[in-house]
């Protein structure tokens, strides 16, 4: 196996995000967001300090309306589709996007090489 299963698209409601800690380090290292039928994944590090994670509670990566990704530390807002910061301290910077794969039967996978490359 050169990839790890992250669940099915149907495990996420539209506008829901989840953090993952695949190496059991005790904190999530990346998160996956469902928007419509598309899935997006980012490293859980805010570009403001490049050293701290985003949510105030596990899985709380989105605003109330699921319009944007939020960093709770200082309220930065990011575009769900490209991770671009639209408001807040890191305005104009981008979250680091993690490539994931969605199979024809709607399973979500991440490659081991990606986990290594992004240190997840």
């Amino acid at each position: 196996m050169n990839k790890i299963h992250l669940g099915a698209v149907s495990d996420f409601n539209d506008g829901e995000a989840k953090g993952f800690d695949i190496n059991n380090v005790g904190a999530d290292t990346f998160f996956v967001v469902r928007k419509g039928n598309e899935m997006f994944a980012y490293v859980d590090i805010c570009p403001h300090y490049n050293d701290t994670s985003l949510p105030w509670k596990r899985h709380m990566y989105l605003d109330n309306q699921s319009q944007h990704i939020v960093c709770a530390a200082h309220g930065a807002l990011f575009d769900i589709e490209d991770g671009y910061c639209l408001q807040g301290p890191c305005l104009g910077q981008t979250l680091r996007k993690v490539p994931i794969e969605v199979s024809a039967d709607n399973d979500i996978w991440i490659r081991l090489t990606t986990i290594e490359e992004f240190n997840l």
Partner: protein
Amino acid sequence: MNIIGPDKLIFGVDDVEACRQFARDYGLAEQGEHSFVALDGTGIEVRSRDDESLPAALASGSMLRKTVYGVADQATLDQIKAELETDRDVKVLEDGSIELLDDLGFVLGFQVTVRKAVDLAAERVNSVAQCNRGINHVGVSKDHKPSIQTLSHVVYFVPDPVKAEAFYEKRLGFVTTDRFTGVGPFMRPAGTQDHHTLFFIGTPPHMQGCEHFTFHLSGPTDVMQAGTNMVNKGYQSFWGPGRHLFGSNWFWYFKSPFGCNMEFDADMDQHDDSWTGREAMMGPDNSQAFLLQYREKWAPAGGPPPKA
């Protein structure tokens, strides 16, 4: 001017229910429909961002909509009004408080303070020569509930910390206690001896807003227990626990749904006008005496763990 310190912070938030639960879990008591208060009556007001009773938001999108200061008496309130009416609009609100904009565009309120005299005892520590806690008094227990004593300070991101300092010093009588070079001052109003009730951090204009706010607890043990309770409820630490150098206050910061960090703090230095301010470069080495990191409860036992 006899300004005592912040009485209330008013927020217009994205997720009201999340903020309300966060405030409860932090340890504040619900008061009326929108307020959460500490023991002495100071606190926060949580409203939806589109609540029409709120003053306008900053362009930066900060959820902090107003900082309300408590002052000693009506005479102080009149004095502030007279001073600031000379160059800006000062509104008198229905409750008798006044409202105005500071030189950076933050909405400020001033009111005769709501602070009640309550027993805000400090944590007591025994040493060899001093039995401060009293004989047969235990210092810590698992089910102790830390109490949130009083609203302590707010840290603001500001585009022009020099302008900010000048306004609070010249117009409102705040004193600078210490300073991070090129970053900003720690300030206390004349009516308190707390090292700071505000600190300014110079940033680009698009960041203007609240970096964090915090309440005083009775001592380091309560900070540790309150923070541990938050971790156990699933909240995520941002920085701490540790102890700051300027102010000597113990700290533990948590990310929050208020769009800024919310801190627990305790044991801040007290100063009067004989204090000579210090200055240092901001950075990891000058921001804390030490920094610890939470770890799940664990204990060493007698021998090596039994083999599976």
